């Protein structure tokens, strides 16, 4: 097995992130599409292990290859990855873990500041950005995404859109890349907490939801 792509120190990306991107492409566009992407990005063997670490240049190469193949900007690809993580049946563990935040999308927003700590409980070596929710009144919020891997902001954006749907809330969102010394942020407008019937969620792990 070749592990020229595996490194122990330096700028690293957790395999779980890379694996998520890989599964997103395979589950959404098929195995052939993923093999093309892996070839373009020089990924050999053509798969990521979720429990290993990789040079983050490899992640960027893979994202670039996806962006070209799908003819979509990188931000849009990353948003789709975020949505995929919350909605696809192959990744329902992630949706479940996020739904532990509370019974409503409001509870979920309120718990966002704790999300990095919760991620750390689940995957201790995954570097996750710090999140700070700023409430601006009238259902307006600003979610600051600070530190590590600016790309996360788009994944979070996509995941939050999907999660709002999952809770049945109506939310408008707009992401902003970090510029200069300013951290990236997501502007949210919570138009309705219960806009539609949300999906069921039961705490018991044996439950299908």
């Amino acid at each position, binding site marked *: 097995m070749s592990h020229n792509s595996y490194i122990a120190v330096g700028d690293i990306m957790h395999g779980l992130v890379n694996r998520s991107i890989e599964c997103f492409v395979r589950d959404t566009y098929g195995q052939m599409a993923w093999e093309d992407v892996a070839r373009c990005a020089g990924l050999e063997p053509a798969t990521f*292990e*979720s429990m290993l670490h990789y040079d983050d240049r490899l992640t960027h190469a893979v994202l670039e290859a996806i962006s070209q193949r799908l003819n979509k900007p990188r931000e849009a690809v990353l948003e789709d990855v975020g949505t995929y993580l919350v909605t696809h049946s192959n990744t329902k563990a992630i949706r*479940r873990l996020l739904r*532990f935040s509370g019974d409503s999308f409001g509870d979920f927003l309120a718990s966002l500041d704790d999300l990095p700590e919760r991620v750390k*409980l689940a995957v201790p070596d995954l570097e996750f950005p710090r999140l700070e929710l700023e409430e601006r009144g009238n259902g307006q919020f600003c979610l600051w995404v600070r530190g590590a891997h600016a790309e996360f902001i788009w994944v979070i954006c996509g995941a939050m859109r999907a999660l709002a749907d999952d809770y049945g809330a109506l939310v408008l969102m707009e992401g902003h890349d970090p510029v200069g010394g300013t951290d990236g942020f997501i502007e949210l407008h919570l138009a309705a907490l219960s806009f539609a019937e949300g999906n069921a969620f039961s*705490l*018991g*792990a044996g*439950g299908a939801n």
Partner: protein
Amino acid sequence: MALPRLDAQALMGAALLAPAALDRLMPMHLQIAADGHVVHVGPTLGQVSPVPLEGLGFKALMGVLQPRGIQDLAGLRAADGGQVRFRLATEPEIPMKGLCVPTHDGGALLNLSFGYAVTSAVEHFHLTCGDFACTDLTIEMLFLIEAKSAAQEEQRKLNMRLQGDKQRAEAEALSDGLTGLANRRAFDAALMRCIENGAPFAVMQIDLDFFKAVNDTLGHAAGDAVLAKVAAVLKKETRASDLVARVGGDEFSILFVRFVDVGSLLDVAGRMIAHIEEPLPFGKQACEISASIGIAVAQGAHSDTAADLVHKADTALYASKFAGRRQATIYSQGLEEEVARNAADLPLPRQ
């Protein structure tokens, strides 16, 4: 200004907190009045009970598991702050634990928890985040259990993939891990190549004598040391262009490319046997073995298949064994019949 005198009774009694506030702090509590009947039930506890608990007396309410002997309100009050383990009469499937404190009105306040039954309880009762006080770590614990199970599952899959890779790598490998010689797979491939290109060559089959005795009496480590030594001898007595393989436990095969002189081959085999017979010190003991050898020669433009040649070399090897081991035999026409005659008289040597 004099402070109003606070009534100790009012301060310390549950009356200081409205029932709704107690419900929020402890959604799984219940209050028992001095007469032993339940007067109030927290919302989550109320939800998990199939019948209303209010108005039930002690016996109808619960069976205490620990501490044993608690049979009434007086017993509960005496437990004062200690842990009480019990089953609710209305939900006997789920064991619960609780902390009980006596109240000043002669009753008791009992705050309950599912303890280790929590995962089955949340499933059974369809509890949600809102059913637990936010200071209760139940939700965090359920999150952790699920997160760790998911991580463990990923780890398990990785281990399975690595295991598969390892087996595949071993199957595809061409060398023997113990001796570093070629393995049977490599030998078979090289034999096919020799037959295809038509040059003369010889096949030598070597079977160790008394090896099993070494393994049985001195252990596997001694056996492994012997195999390593034999490998070294065979390498030393062959040229770089020959292929030396370990094809079985104590069986070796050699391909001599463009080397078919019968006398010289027998000389080589004789030297091999002599070196193999040199005792190998192992601890305070010495490993003493020998070898039997069979040789088949293919004189170019072959009509023999690989299987034919190996069979001829094996036949010559059996002839060496029947003749008393520790020697080499060159295959010649008719040797099969001789071996067969010997085999009829003697038990066939081990293969």
